[in-house]
C-alpha cells in the first residue's frame, strides 16, 4: 500500500524534492501537490531574464503539466491551503478540499517583504517574486515612465535593469551606503555602482523610505530625511519573508522560518519543510542551490536511504545584469582570522579578492572578470589546502591537472549548475547512459549550463573526466570551414609552430578534407599566411576573391567599379576634370560619390579597367579590399569655426599610414574635429574625436548590418600617439581576428578590456607597431604595380578570336 505524500507549494525546491523521490523510488508514494499559483513549476530565478526581455515565460517552465500526469501526481493549482491538522493528518483548502496525508511537506517558500509604511497598499506598489509580478511590471512599463526600486540587492538590481530594458527611467533606493552589501565588499560594490550608473541607472543611497503617497495609484515616495521622489511604480526588493503562517497555526516550531533538523523534519512528526520557508541551524536561504540540496536531502530520507542529511550551504552569488560580471561566495570581509589576496586593476575594471584562513579559501569576491568564480568556489567548498600555492597561483587559472583533480573530487550530489539545479551525478549519468559527447548535448539533455552558462567550464571538465580520451573538445567547435574541424586560432598556431609556408602545405599537414580548399578557406589561409610571414610569403592571387584579385568590385553584370583614393575625402579641380574626362571616354554609366566620400566610376568593362587606371593616374582607393577603406573626416580647424584640431590633416595622415595592409575584414576610420562629430566616427572601426586638450580614441564601432557604437578607449595628447595607437590596434586585429570578422564582433569576442590592456602595455604596443610597419613595407600600391606587371595586366584581357 502506497503512503500518501502531500506537498503544500509547487515551487522549485519542493518539486525538486519530488523529482528526487521519484528517481529513487517511483512506487513508494501517492503524491499530491497543492500550489496557489495557477502554473506548473517554473524557474523563478529566470524571471529577471523574462523582465529583461531575454526569455519568455513559456520558456522558464521546469515541469510542464504532462510531467505531473506522467508521474501520476495529483496537482491542485490556484488553490490555497488554509489549514494543517496534524492530529487528523489532513489539510484543508480555500476551495473546500480536504486532503489527508501520511507524510506532509511544507514548501510554501517566501513572499516579497513589503515595507510596512503608509501607502504600501497603493496600486503600482509590488514585490518581485512571481510571474504575476513580472507581468505587472512589463505592463506598467508600457504605460508609465518612472519606476523606483527599493532595495539595492541582487533582486532589486536585476529588477531595475529589467525595467530599464523595458524603457522606464529607474531610480534605486538603498538603505545602506553600498550596493549588495550581503555579497560584495566596498571596492567591488563601488565598481558595480559605477558600471550601473554608466548604464543609466540612478541611485538614492542611504535613504530610508517612510511613506508612499498617491491617491489610488502611487505618485511618489518620501524619505526620512524629508526628501521625496516622484514615480509611477514602486518595486519592493528589500528581502523575502518565509511563509510560515500555516505552520505556525498548526503548532509547529517556527522562528524566522519553520525550524527543521538535518532531515528537514519539523518539530511535528510526519511534517517536513524544504526551501525558503525552512530554517536550518538558524539560517533561512533564498538562493536556489541550497534549496535544491535540501530537497535532495529530504528525498533521500523519505525514501529510506542512508543519509547524513542536510549540512547547511555556503552561498555563492552571481548577478544577472549584462555588463556587470561579478561573483561572490563565502565570506566577504576581512577579519582577524583571514588574510586577503587582492588584485585591483582600476583601469581594466577588474577586482579580485580571495580570503584565506588556515591555508584555505574562505571567501571570494570577484568583479569585472568572474570567470574564476566556479574554480575558486570549488576550492572553498572542498577546503583545498593552498599552502603550496603562491598568491598569484590562487588567483590565476589552475593548470589542467588541478582542474581535473578538482572534478574528480566532486561528490555526485554536488550541484554543478546552480540555475537549474543539476548535480555532477546527473551529468555523469546522462553522459554514460545517453552517450553524450559534447557540452551542447549535455546542455540539451540535462539543462546544465542552459541558463546563465557560467558552469560550462565545469561541465566540460566532467565530460573530459568521464570520457577520458574519448572527449574531443574540438567536436564542439566549428572549424574555420567545412574542410577542417580546426578553428582559426588553431590553424594560425599550427602555421607558426610548424613553420608552414604555403596554403597547400597547411592543407596537407593539417589534413584538410578538401586538398585544394574551398572558397571559404582559400582566401582565409592566404590572409593568415601573409599575416604570419609578411616578408616571406608571396600573395596568391588565385586564392583571392575576384574583387581583390582584380582590384575592383565586381558588379552584378560582370563589370567593375573604379574608386580612386581621395585621402580624407579630399580631391582637386584637376583630379575632378580628369575623372570627368575618363568617365566620358570609357562611357562609364554611373559616376557617384561613394559611401566612403570618394568619387566612384561604376560599370567599367573588365578590359577597360587598366586603361581607366592609367588615364586617371590616381592611387587605388581599395574600395574592394579587406583593408582600410577610408578615413572620413570633417574640415576641422582649417575652416570650421568649431574645429579644435586639424582633423582633416590627421585623417589624411592616418589614411596614409594604415592603407593597403590586409586586415581580416574591411576597416573604416574617422576623425571629427570636435564633439559635434560630423565625421560620425562613433560607428567606425577606429574613431578619433578631437577635443581642446587632445584626441579621444574609440574603437569597435560598426554602422553596417548590425549597428554597434564604439567603445571609448583613451584620450591622447598628440597626433603621433593617435597614429601609434591606430597601428597597434590594427595589428592586434590583424593578428587575432578571424578572416571575414569585422572589428565590432571581434571586440565582442576578444573583449574590449583585453584589447585596452594590450594596447596600453607599452612593450606589447611597441611590438605590434613594429610588426605593422614591417608588414606595411611589403605592400605596393595596387593599381600602379599591376600596370607595371604584364602578367597581372593580362588578367583583364579577353582573348578574342
Amino acid at each position, binding site marked *: 500500500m502506497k503512503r500518501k505524500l502531500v506537498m503544500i507549494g509547487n515551487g522549485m525546491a519542493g518539486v525538486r524534492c519530488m523529482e528526487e523521490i521519484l528517481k529513487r523510488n517511483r512506487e513508494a508514494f501517492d503524491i499530491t501537490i497543492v500550489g496557489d499559483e495557477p502554473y506548473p513549476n517554473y524557474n523563478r530565478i529566470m524571471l529577471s531574464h523574462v523582465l529583461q526581455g531575454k526569455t519568455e515565460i513559456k520558456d522558464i517552465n521546469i515541469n510542464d503539466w504532462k510531467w505531473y500526469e506522467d508521474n501520476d501526481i495529483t496537482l491542485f493549482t490556484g488553490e490555497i491551503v488554509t489549514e494543517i491538522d496534524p492530529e487528523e493528518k489532513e489539510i484543508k483548502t480555500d476551495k473546500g478540499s480536504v486532503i489527508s496525508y501520511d507524510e506532509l511537506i511544507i514548501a510554501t517558500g517566501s513572499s516579497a517583504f513589503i515595507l510596512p509604511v503608509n501607502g504600501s497598499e497603493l496600486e503600482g506598489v509590488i514585490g518581485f517574486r512571481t510571474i504575476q509580478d513580472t507581468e505587472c511590471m512589463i505592463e506598467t512599463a508600457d504605460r508609465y515612465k518612472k519606476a523606483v526600486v527599493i532595495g539595492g540587492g541582487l533582486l532589486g538590481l536585476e529588477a531595475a535593469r529589467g525595467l530599464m530594458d523595458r524603457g522606464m527611467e529607474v531610480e534605486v533606493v538603498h538603505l545602506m551606503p553600498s550596493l549588495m552589501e550581503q555579497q560584495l565588499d566596498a571596492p567591488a560594490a563601488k565598481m558595480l555602482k559605477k558600471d550601473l550608473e554608466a548604464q543609466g541607472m540612478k541611485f538614492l543611497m542611504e535613504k530610508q523610505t517612510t511613506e508612499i503617497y498617491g491617491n489610488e495609484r502611487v505618485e511618489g515616495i518620501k524619505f526620512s530625511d524629508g526628501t521625496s521622489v516622484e514615480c509611477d511604480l514602486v518595486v519592493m526588493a528589500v528581502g523575502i519573508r518565509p511563509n510560515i503562517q500555516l505552520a505556525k497555526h498548526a503548532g509547529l516550531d517556527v522562528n524566522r522560518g519553520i525550524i527543521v533538523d538535518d532531515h528537514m523534519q519539523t518539530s511535528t512528526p510526519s511534517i517536513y519543510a524544504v526551501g525558503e520557508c525552512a530554517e536550518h541551524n538558524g539560517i533561512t536561504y533564498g538562493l536556489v542551490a541550497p534549496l535544491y540540496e535540501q530537497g535532495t536531502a529530504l528525498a533521500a530520507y523519505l525514501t529510506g536511504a542512508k543519509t547524513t542529511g542536510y549540512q547547511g550551504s555556503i552561498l555563492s552569488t552571481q548577478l544577472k545584469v549584462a555588463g556587470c560580471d561579478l561573483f561572490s561566495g563565502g565570506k566577504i570581509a576581512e577579519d582577524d582570522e583571514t588574510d586577503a589576496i587582492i588584485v585591483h586593476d582600476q583601469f581594466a575594471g577588474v577586482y579580485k579578492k580571495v580570503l584565506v584562513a588556515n591555508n584555505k579559501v574562505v571567501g571570494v569576491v570577484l568583479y569585472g572578470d568572474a570567470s574564476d568564480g566556479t574554480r575558486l568556489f570549488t576550492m572553498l567548498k572542498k577546503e583545498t589546502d593552498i599552502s603550496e600555492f603562491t598568491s598569484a597561483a590562487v588567483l590565476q587559472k589552475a593548470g589542467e591537472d588541478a582542474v581535473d583533480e578538482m572534478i574528480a573530487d566532486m561528490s555526485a550530489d554536488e550541484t554543478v549548475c546552480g540555475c537549474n539545479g543539476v548535480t555532477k551525478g546527473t551529468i555523469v549519468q546522462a553522459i554514460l547512459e545517453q552517450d553524450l559527447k559534447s557540452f551542447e548535448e549535455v546542455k540539451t539533455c540535462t539543462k546544465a549550463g542552459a541558463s546563465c552558462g557560467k558552469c560550462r567550464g565545469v561541465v566540460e571538465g566532467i565530460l573530459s573526466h568521464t570520457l577520458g580520451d574519448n572527449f574531443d573538445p574540438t567536436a564542439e567547435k566549428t572549424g574555420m570551414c567545412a574542410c577542417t574541424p580546426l578553428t582559426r586560432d588553431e590553424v594560425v598556431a599550427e602555421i607558426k609552430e610548424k613553420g608552414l609556408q604555403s596554403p597547400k602545405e597547411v592543407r596537407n599537414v593539417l589534413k584538410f578534407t*578538401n*586538398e*585544394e*580548399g*574551398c*572558397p571559404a578557406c*582559400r*582566401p582565409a589561409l592566404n590572409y593568415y599566411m601573409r599575416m604570419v610571414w609578411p616578408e616571406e610569403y608571396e600573395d596568391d*592571387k*588565385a*586564392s583571392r*576573391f*575576384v*574583387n581583390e*584579385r*582584380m582590384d575592383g568590385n*565586381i558588379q*552584378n*553584370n*560582370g563589370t567593375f567599379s573604379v574608386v580612386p583614393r581621395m585621402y580624407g575625402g579630399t580631391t582637386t579641380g584637376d583630379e575632378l576634370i580628369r575623372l570627368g574626362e575618363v568617365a566620358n571616354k570609357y562611357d562609364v554609366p554611373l559616376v557617384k560619390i561613394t559611401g566612403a566620400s570618394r568619387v566612384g566610376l561604376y560599370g567599367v568593362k*573588365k578590359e577597360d579597367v587598366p586603361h581607366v587606371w592609367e588615364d586617371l593616374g590616381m592611387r587605388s582607393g581599395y574600395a574592394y579590399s579587406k583593408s582600410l577603406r577610408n578615413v572620413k573626416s570633417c574640415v576641422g580647424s582649417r575652416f570650421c569655426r568649431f574645429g579644435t584640431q586639424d582633423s582633416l590633416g590627421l585623417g589624411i595622415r592616418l589614411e596614409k599610414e594604415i592603407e593597403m595592409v590586409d586586415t581580416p575584414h574591411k576597416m573604416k576610420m574617422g576623425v571629427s574635429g570636435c564633439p559635434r562629430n560630423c565625421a560620425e566616427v562613433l560607428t567606425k572601426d577606429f574613431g578619433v574625436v578631437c577635443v581642446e586638450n587632445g584626441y579621444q580614441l574609440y574603437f569597435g564601432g560598426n554602422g553596417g548590418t548590425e549597428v554597434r557604437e564604439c567603445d571609448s578607449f583613451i584620450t591622447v595628447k598628440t597626433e603621433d600617439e593617435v597614429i601609434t595607437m591606430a597601428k597597434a590596434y590594427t595589428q592586434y586585429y590583424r593578428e587575432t581576428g578571424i578572416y571575414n570578422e569585422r572589428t565590432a564582433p571581434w571586440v565582442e569576442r576578444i573583449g574590449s578590456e583585453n584589447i585596452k590592456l594590450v594596447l596600453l602595455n607599452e612593450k606589447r604596443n611597441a611590438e605590434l607597431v613594429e610588426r605593422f610597419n614591417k608588414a606595411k613595407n611589403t605592400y605596393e600600391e595596387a593599381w600602379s604595380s599591376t600596370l607595371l606587371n604584364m*602578367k597581372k595586366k*593580362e*588578367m583583364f584581357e*579577353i*582573348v*578574342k*578570336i
Partner: protein
Amino acid sequence: MMKTIEIVKIMELESLPKQIGKEVHVGGESIALFHLSNGDVRAIGSRCPHTNGPLAEGIVSGEFVFCPLQNWKVSLVTGEVQKPDDGAVPTYETKVIDGYVYIAV
C-alpha cells in the same frame, strides 16, 4: 544540318596561370578557360546559369569553379551546377599542342 566542330588555337599555355580563369570569345561564344592545379585545361560556358555571373572570375578549387556573384559551384569537367542548386553550362573539349591551348567549338 550537322554542326561542324572547329578546333581553334587560343593562346600559349604558359600565359594561362593556374587556378585563375580566362575569358575567351570565339566566334560569338563566350568561354571561360581554366588551367587546373593538376595541369588539366578545361573550358566551359562563361556565364553562370543563375544570375549570369562571369565564371572566369570565380575562385577555382580542384575541378570546380565558384561563381563570384552568388557562389554557385560549377563542375569544370561536366559543366553541371552542383547541388543544392541546379543547372548546367556547356563544356568544350580542349587540347594542348606544342605549348598552345586549342578549344573545340
